[in-house]
């Protein structure tokens, strides 16, 4: 990143979003005695150790048995508990899709499916673990809420917010150390998009780690005299259609940015919204129908076209199509 960039949001510390989950879970557990945790042999990776230590009787190590974990969690809602399941995003979704579909979504159970190591930025473990289809799978399920926060603070706030929300939730976060650029005391409103930067020429709708890349892209575009609006879509479902339509009515074009397949991701949801309400040029940043591979998070975002430079290119393309 060019250090001379005049960023609208800055950071002094980097931290993984999964730590935001772990700290948020601990806080949610302190606030509500009905919060229980389940983990499939990844307590350290999911940062669930502090919750386990403070509430041992409310924590259930499930072993490497994710299907059972989802079923257990669904059953634990009967009697009033609020189960948070923790494993990698791949094993939280694709591996247990039918269990989630029948026992959680169709049964409308108050289960919070918390998924770490999502997307390319998992890094060196490679494509077996870099799930890029999870948002699509989860957003297709009726009753399911889908949330992908952008940094440590937002993930912590989201974790506490979903404990107070009645109904099944998929919470997606990640592994890499990432800039903390949103405030610690933020109020997390499920389903409410957050306009982080006002602009007039193009709207960048970003989710998860790519919100930071969008913030960097805005500064790069501004240097070239282009005014970009940055909207943080932390809740992919239900989608804040009103905010999306209002912004694009003003800017006339948009870019979606996500660490996910183009098929089934946030971009698809935005496209549906725009085509029905306010057709406008839309460019997509995401993985285009391929699996990932081993590498560092930064290398992978560059190779697969998901970083700030690519958002800048997409924004210019969208503007040219107006």
């Amino acid at each position, binding site marked *: 990143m060019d250090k001379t960039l005049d960023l609208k949001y800055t950071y002094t510390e980097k931290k993984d979003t999964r730590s935001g989950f772990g700290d948020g879970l601990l806080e949610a557990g302190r606030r509500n005695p009905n919060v229980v945790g389940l983990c499939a042999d990844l307590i350290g990776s999911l940062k669930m150790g502090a919750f386990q230590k403070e509430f041992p009787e409310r924590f259930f190590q499930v*072993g490497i*048995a994710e299907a059972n974990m989802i079923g257990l969690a*669904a059953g*634990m809602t*009967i*009697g009033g508990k609020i189960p948070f399941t923790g494993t990698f995003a791949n094993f939280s979704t694709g591996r247990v899709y039918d269990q989630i579909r029948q*026992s959680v979504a169709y049964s409308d*159970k108050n289960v919070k499916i918390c998924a770490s190591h999502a997307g390319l930025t998992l890094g060196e473990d490679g494509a077996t673990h870099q799930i890029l289809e999870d948002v699509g799978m989860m957003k297709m399920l009726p009753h399911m809420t889908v949330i992908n926060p952008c940094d440590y603070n937002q993930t912590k706030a989201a974790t506490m917010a979903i404990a107070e929300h009645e109904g099944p939730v998929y919470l997606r976060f990640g592994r890499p150390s990432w800039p903390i650029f949103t405030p610690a005391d933020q109020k997390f409103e499920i389903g409410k998009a957050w306009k982080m930067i006002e602009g007039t020429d193009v709207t960048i709708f970003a989710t998860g780690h790519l919100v930071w890349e969008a913030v960097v892209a805005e500064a790069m575009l501004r240097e070239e005299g282009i005014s970009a609006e940055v909207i943080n879509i932390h809740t992919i479902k239900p989608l804040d259609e009103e905010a999306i339509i209002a912004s694009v009515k003003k800017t006339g074009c948009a870019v979606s940015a996500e660490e996910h397949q183009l098929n089934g991701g946030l971009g698809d949801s935005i496209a549906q919204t725009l085509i029905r309400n306010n057709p406008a040029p839309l460019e997509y940043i995401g993985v285009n129908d391929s699996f990932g591979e081993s590498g560092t998070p930064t290398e992978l975002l560059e190779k697969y076209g998901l970083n700030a430079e690519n958002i800048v290119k997409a924004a210019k393309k969208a503007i040219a199509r107006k």
Partner: protein
Amino acid sequence: MEKQPLAQLTKISSQVRRDILRMVHAVQSGHPGASLGCTEFFVALYFNQMKHDSSFNMDGVGEDLFFLSNGHISPVWYSVLARSGYFSVEEMKTFRKLNSRLQGHPATEEHLPGVRIASGSLGQGLSAAIGAAQVKKLNQDDRLVYVLMGDGEQQEGQVWEAAMYGAHYGVDNLIATIDFNRQQIDGPTKDVMDLKDLKAKWEAFGWEVVETVEGNNMEAVLAGLEKAKSLTGKGKPVLNLLHTEMGYGVDFMVGTHKWHGIAPSDEQLANALGQLEETLGDY
């Protein structure tokens, strides 16, 4: 629900079998075979064994809970729920029809009283039941959780994940029953995928196993459930291996997988109903 005596349980069973056949016949779809085979078990649970409240609330605090994992045998469950007051017996007329709460496989989406989780895709009920049982412990609720699985369902891997977990955590307020009728859709279980020694398998996984050899004899079913109950609270989950005959109660349906998922014709229904006394009044 008051505990019903043996003679009354036998009468109820006859009516439940009529309900099953009439429901499946009316819509020409559904699963009569294992519904008929599990009738004594369901009647014993809902009219004698379980403490339960037909006014129904999802959490079921202070009540025994029942989960049906092999959801395709919904007809027997719906009949027993209706006959014990969860909803009107008239509602059985809507089974599998459009806009019904009595879905082909049990569901919560339409808020049918008595159903706490959807089932149909096999292998998931035991996990949910164990979760509910652990919550009973957390809530210091000393009632039991019951779950029924099919024997063919034992081929699903999730069942064994749950079996391992139940023993690891000593979930001893749970009685899981297997409808051991040795049949599945494509034929006898030993031909489709041999279950071998199920009793030994569950024991090896750390469960107490009760074997109910005569699962269509009401006295034996009650004795098996009492035995299972006596083994709860001792640190291990309990498995009740319930030997039944698919299609029991109707001479041309008994003992074959052929009636797993097909409906009787008008003539077949008349023949079958002729073998089953109408004891509580047809819906």
